[in-house]
C-alpha cells in the first residue's frame, strides 16, 4: 500500500456472509455510507444488512416503461388505422380496438424488459470493466465463495484504523488498503 497515492479505501475478506453482514451492521451504525459488500450470490442476511433504494428505483422505472409501452403501442395502431389512413377492411369498424390489444401488450412487455435491463445497468453503474477494487488480493473469489467488505476512503467518516479494528473483530481473513 502506498501512502502518497490517495487510497480507494479498505477492503476486508471474510469467509461467511454472516461475518460480512455483522461488519456491515457496525459500519452502518457507525454512520458510514460509502461501503459495500461483495459476494458470489444475493443472500438475505447481506441484503438486510445493506441499506439501498436501487431495487425500488428499478421497479419504478420498469413500471413507468410498462405504462408508456402500452400507451404508445395502442396509440400508433389507433392513429394509423383510424386517423391517418382509414381503410374499409372487410367491412370491419376502423377502430377495432380488441384487435389493437395484443400488439399493444407485446410492445408493453418489450419496453418493460428493456428499460428494466437499462435501469439495472444504470443503477449499478455498469458496464464498468475496470474498478479499483479488483486490485484486492483474491478478490476473484468474491464471485465464487468469499465475501468482501469494502469501505471507501472518500467517506467523511472514514477512518482506516477503526475499520481495520471492526474487520478484525469479525475474523477478517485479510484487510488490504488499495489505491484508487
Amino acid at each position, binding site marked *: 500500500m502506498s501512502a502518497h497515492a490517495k487510497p480507494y479505501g479498505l477492503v476486508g475478506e471474510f469467509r461467511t456472509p454472516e461475518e460480512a453482514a455483522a461488519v456491515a451492521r457496525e459500519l452502518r451504525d457507525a454512520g458510514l455510507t460509502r461501503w459495500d459488500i461483495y459476494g458470489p450470490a444475493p443472500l438475505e442476511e447481506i441484503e438486510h444488512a445493506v441499506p439501498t433504494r436501487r431495487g425500488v428505483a428499478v421497479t419504478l422505472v420498469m413500471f413507468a416503461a410498462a405504462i408508456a409501452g402500452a400507451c404508445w403501442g395502442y396509440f400508433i395502431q389507433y392513429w394509423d388505422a383510424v386517423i391517418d389512413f382509414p*381503410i*374499409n*377492411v*372487410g*367491412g*370491419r*369498424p376502423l377502430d377495432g380496438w380488441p384487435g389493437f390489444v395484443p400488439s399493444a401488450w407485446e410492445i408493453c412487455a418489450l419496453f418493460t424488459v428493456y428499460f428494466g435491463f437499462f435501469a439495472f445497468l444504470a443503477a449499478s453503474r455498469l458496464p464498468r470493466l475496470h474498478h479499483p477494487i479488483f486490485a484486492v488480493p483474491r478478490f476473484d473469489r468474491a464471485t465464487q465463495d468469499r465475501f468482501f467488505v469494502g469501505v471507501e476512503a472518500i467517506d467523511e467518516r472514514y477512518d482506516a484504523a477503526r475499520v481495520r479494528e471492526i474487520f478484525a473483530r469479525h475474523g477478517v481473513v485479510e484487510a488490504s488498503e488499495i489505491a484508487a
Partner: protein
Amino acid sequence: MSDHSGHRDASREILDWGRLATFDGPPEILERARRQLAAYATAGADSLDRRRFLQLTAASMALMGLAACGPEVDPRDRQPYVEQPVGIVPGRPRYYATATAPHGYGEGVLIEHQMGRPIKVEGNPDHPASLGATSAIGQATILSLYDPFRAQALTLDGSISSWPAFATAMIERRRSLLAQHGRGLALLTGTVTSPTLIEQIETLRRDFPELRWYRWEAVDRDEARAGAQLAYGRPVDLLPNFAAADVILAIESDFLESAPGHLKFARDFASRRRASEVKGRMSRLYALESTPTLAGAKADHGLAMSPDEIQTALRRLAGSLGAGPSEWSGLAHARGQALDAIAADLRGAHGRALVHVGACQSAEVHALGAALNHALGAHATCLSMIEPVGAEPRESSHGIVDLTEAVSRGQVDTLVVLADNPVYGAPADLDFARALRRVPFSIYLGESADETAEAVHWHVPRSHEYEAWSDVRAFDGTLAIQQPQIRPRGERRSAHELLEVISGQTTPDGLAIVRQHWQMRARESGVRDFDAYWTQALRAGVAPDTAAQRIEVTPRADLSSQLAPRPAPAATAPPASGEPSAAPSTAAARPAPGAPPPVTILFRPDIYLWDGRFADNGWLQEMGRPFTRLTWDNAALVSPRTARRLELSSADLVEIDLGGRRLQAPVWVLPGQADDCVTLPLGYGRRRAGPVGQDVGFDAYTLRTRSTLWQTSGAILRKLADRRHQFASIQHESHTLGRDLVREGTLGQFLANPRFASYGHSDASLYPRYPYPGIAWGMSINLDACIGCHACVTACQAENNSPVVGKTEVIRDREMHWLRIDRYYEGSPEEPATVFQPVPCMQCENAPCEVVCPVHATVHDSEGINDMVYNRCVGTRFCSNNCPYKVRRFNFFAYTASDPRPRESWNPEVTVRGRGVMEKCTYCVQRTRTAMIAADRDNRRVQDGEVKTACQQACPTEAIVFGDQNDAASAVARRKASPLDYAMLGALNTRPRTTYEALIRNPNPALASNGTPRSARSGEATLPAAGGRETGDA
C-alpha cells in the same frame, strides 16, 4: 372498352392497312421480352418496362417496326411518333371488326387494340353468329396470333427458302400444268365458306380444266350433309330455332358447343331457360347421348345410350310419332318407357317441338331426325332450311380417300394442300403421309411446321386469320370481311395469296383479291357507291342482307324405306366421300377367346382443341374440360359400370386393341357415359407441333379408319397392370356434399313457391353495415343459363393477363384461372344430373380475406369491390386460406415471366403479376375504373351496361350480369330481385356481391322417377357419403 355497347359504330374503325403494326424481326422483340420480364420476375414491378413499352411510349408501334434494325431501347425512353396516325389516342383502346372461323364458319368479332396492338377479342353484337358473345376458342385466337412458335419461314424440303424462290418454282410449274390443262393438279381444302376463295378456285378451273378439288376436315359435317341428302334428296343446311321450341330432343347434340351458330343457339336456348324470367314458358330439353355433351348436361332428362340404342330409340320415336312405319314403335328398347313419355311430350308440343342431331351421329340418325321434325311440324316453326353454306366441290368423289387413291394411281403430280394438317388427321388406314410424299410437287399452306409440313416439298406459312384479308360466311350464310389486325410476320401468306400465285400472279395482294371479289358482288347486287359499301361492311363486321335465302323442302315420303329395315348395328359411318352407308363396321375385331368382351369406340373432337388445330394454344390446353375437368390431357372415357366390369379406375393405363391397331391410353371414369362405349377425344398426341402442343395426350387418330370416323365396335381394352398415368385435373371432388353451394329445384316447385330457394339468410352482425352510398358493383349469375362452355374463363384469362402454368404446376393445384366453372354431379353415376357453377371472386362485403392481410394488400373500395393491390402484397397467402370460396390464386413461381407469349401481347390495362404475389378476380376493375373516369370527366353517373366484365361480355347465354346494384333500374338489380337469388355459403355472412339464381329444371312429370330426383337442397339425399370421388383423380 365499355363504349362500344353504346355508340358502337363510332368506336369501330377501319384499320389503316398502311400503318398496321408489324412484327418484323420478332426474335429480337421476343428475346427482349423474355429477358426484361425475367429481370423483374421477383418484383411486383416486374411488368414495369413492359407497360411503359406498351402504353406510355406512343412509339411502341414504330418500335415494333424498328426493333429489327434499332439498338435495344432503353425502357425509360419516350418515343413519340414521327407522324401520328389519325385518330390514335395513346392509352385509348380502339375496336376493329373482323371474323374468326374456328370450325370453318364465321363468327364475328371485334378486336380491341391498344396502341395499334390487338389485345383482346370481343364478340360482334351485329354478327348473327356472335350476337356479342364469343366461344372459348374464339377468345383464345388472340393467343394463337401471338404464338411465337408459329411458322414464319417458307421452307423447301425442310430447309429455309424464300417467297421469290417459291414463286419462280410455282410459275414454272404453272407453265407445264397449263400445257396439260391442269391434269395432275389437285387441290385439298378444308371446309370452304369464303366466297372469294370459291371464286378463285373457279378461276383456276378456267386455266386448268382438269384441276381436281378435294375436301377434307378431320372433324367434318359429312354425316349431317349425307343425312340431309338422304332425307330431303338434296343438300340443305338446317337452322333450328331454339327460342321457339317448347320441347327439344337433342341427339348427342353439339348445338351448345361447336355446331355452326352454336353461340346464337345457346342464346336462344337460354332465353327460354332462365326460369325467373320465362316462368311457365320454360322449355324442356331431352338428351340421348353416348358421351356427355353440354346439351346433355343442361337436359332435364339425359339418357345415356350406345349409338345402336340411339338409332333404335329414334326409330321407336319415329314409329310412335308417325314419322316412320308404325311397327317401329314396337321396337324393343331398354328405355322404352322413358322414350314413350318423351314421345308423348313431343306429340303434345306439336309445332313447338324440335329434334336436333349432333354432327357425330350417322347419316341415318340425321335422316330420322329430319323425319321426326317433319312429323312434329317443326319445319314451319322451329326449323328452317337454307342452301348449304359450305362450298361443295363439284367432283363426285372428293374425299381424302379418293385423293389418296388418285395419288397412288399416279394421277396427281401437283398437290396444293390448304386443308388443316391432313397428315395428322387423315384416317389411319390411308397412310396419307406416304401418299403425300409420293407427289412430285406438293405445297402446304399451314400455320405451323406440323406433321403435314414435313411430308411436303414446299411449306408456305399460313398467315393467321387476324393477319390476312379474307371473307367468311356464317352458319346462316351471312358474310363478313376478315381484315388483318396486324401485319403478318415473316413469309406468311393467306390461301387467297397462294392461289393467286398459282394463277400466275407472283406478288399477290390479299386486299386487292378480296376487294376485287367484293366489287364484283357489289356490282351484281347493284350497289352504286362501292367504297361506302365496303367501308360500312368493314366497320360493321357484316355485309348487309347476305344471309342465305330460306328454302322449302320436305323429307321424301319414302324416307323410312330408304333406311335399313332393322336398326343397323353400330359403327356405321360412311366413307368420307359422303354418301350414306349402313354397312356394318369392317374394322371390328373378333374378340379372342377369354379376352374381355369388346366395347364400342367413339371418336369425338376435343371441345377445345377441336381436331387438334388448337393444340398449340396454352389457354385451351389448360382449360379444364367441362366434364372430366382435365387439362393437358385426353383420356379414354368409360362409364362407371363399364369401369367396374373391366376393373378399371381413373388413371389406369389400358391398351386399346382395335382389329390389330393398338393404342395405349389412360382411362378416365366419366359419369353419364354410355356403358360399353369408350370415347377417345381427338386432337391430342401431336407428333410435330409447337412446344405447347407437342406430345400432349395420346393420338386417337391412329385408331380411326376411313370407315369408322365416328365410332366402331369390337375394340378390346386390356389393362396394363400397375401402370398409372398422372392426370392434371383441376377438380378432384364432384359432389356438393350437402354444402349450401348450389340451390336448385324443379319448375313445379318454383311455380308453386317462387321463394323456395331463399332460406337460411341471417344478416345478424355485431358490426354496423358499411354504407355504400354511391355505386355498388354487383354480379348475378344465372345457373339455368350457364352451359359450362368456359368462354368466360378464357375471356377472363385474356383480359386479366392470367399466365399459363403448365401441366406439372396444374398437378400441384396451382392453376391461375381467376374464374372457374365447378362441375357437380347429382344422382346416379350412370346418368347423373350435372351442375355447372361459375365461381369468380364473390367480392364479399365482409371479406374474410381482407381482415387477415397484415399489410393492407387486399381491402375494399367505395364501390364495394374487394381490391387486390398486387404491388403491396408480400405473399403470406393467409387471404387464400381464409377465403371460403377459394377463388384466390398465387404466383408460386414467376409464371408471367416464363410465359412464352411476347410481352406486347399482355393487356396494358392490367398489372402483370410477378412472383410471390396473390391475385384474384376484381370485377375487371380496370374496366369499371375506366368507365367511371369517362363518366366523371363529364360529371355524369355511369350508365347501366356501360361497363361489362370480360366474363359477362363473352357469355353466349347472358348467364352473367354485372352492374350497379344500387341502381334499381339496372339489369343486375333486377336479376338480384328475383326470388331465386341466393348467396353461396350465405350462412357465413360474408355478404357476397356475387349472387346466384337457383338452378331450375323442368323435368317431365311422367318421368319424375327416372334419372334425376332432386329437391331444393338436393345433394344430401341422393349422394354417396363424403369423398365420393368416383370421377377419379390422378
